[in-house]
């Protein structure tokens, strides 16, 4: 999977590393913006209220 990704990336090693870092950044942004809040809405088990 990651080996294939590395092979797909164009250019010399330094360019691939830069591209990889950009990809990681994009992935992190998407996770923080949409992914994690969505997970939290599912697994959130925080109960702070008193109820019957």
């Amino acid at each position, binding site marked *: *999977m*990651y*080996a*294939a990704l590395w092979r797909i990336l164009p250019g010399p090693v330094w360019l691939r590393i830069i591209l990889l870092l950009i990809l990681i950044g994009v992935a*992190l942004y998407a*996770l*923080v913006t949409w992914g*994690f809040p969505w*997970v*939290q809405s599912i697994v*959130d*088990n*925080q*109960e*702070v*209220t*008193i*109820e*019957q």
Partner: protein
Amino acid sequence: MSSESDGTIPPTRAARRAAERAAAQASERGTIPAADADSPTAEAPSFVPVTPPLNPVDAPADAPTAVPVEAPEAATADEPEAPVEDPFNLEAFFSAGRPDEAAPGPTETTPAEAEAPLTVAMLVTPSAEPATAGGSSGSGRRPGRRRKRPFEGFSIIGFLGEILLTAGALMLLYLVWQLWYNDMVERGQQDREAASLTEKWDAEESAQPGTPNDGVVPVIAAPGDGEIFATLRIPRFGPDYGAPLAGGVSKAKTLDKAGIGHYPDTQLPGQAGNFAVAGHRNTHGAPLNLVADLRVGDAIVIETREGWFTYRYRNSEYVQPTAVDVLNPVPREDSVAATQSVITLTSCNPKMSTAERIIAYGLFESFTPRADGAPTSLTPTEG
């Protein structure tokens, strides 16, 4: 990489193979004259593929004549050195199974110059650096990668392993996000929102000044579900601490979005009875994260458009999640008419758990109209 031991034996075989292949290729293209094919180059063309690109320019026109004389000498003279790098290059190169890469020189040259690569390579390779620079670094790395190819292929196990590793990393990342990063972000958002509400209310007050303190505690209109009507300020939680306070205790509308929620069936600030609110102790900005750190007498201030309602913390208790009598007008007492005004904070206990609730009570002390400015109870707590 290749050691000297496996370098010493293969070179001759590899060299011969190299020569045959190079010759075959060249003759296919018709670039090599017959005279050259059976010249002593048969021993040496092993060096050909190593330095393909640098030849055409340097190739002298009369190179073919020089070849038979010099090449063998050069080869034998430098024999101790040659095996170290040349066999390696050759072996690596041909095991890669890509003889085409040796060809760029010949294909780019004109037929007249086509013989030059062979001869010049022989002259140059044994003695000069270009072979070392171009050969060991360039073609030394490339074959190394190619040789691994068979083991790099797609495998179910490897793919599964990567999926599992990724899943593990994502879970760790999620925890970091939920327990640290997002709490920090949302805590900051709530603080800033509370501060901007104060500014807004101050601006409204200066545009339309109210009355100074006359001992009358105003009655606040009941907020709608999710409507932010006040902010909670607790100096013990930090000088900049502020949490928007909205009506209702639903997660979707209030607790997860605004910050603190007001139990709709309980009383409002300053009224006789119980002003009960709930807030997260973890996640979503955790406005009540430090609720267990309150000390007797700490100020718990509800700031509204009209002014500040100051309560003083009195005590805490830990109850079952169903202990609704903590929300009574007189907490824990059924059917008793309230004469005092109290505040009740509810949150989860222990942290990150739904097992119990922590309840913190405070007693109403005073009301400070906005016209009088912020009360002294808001000054940061020391120690």
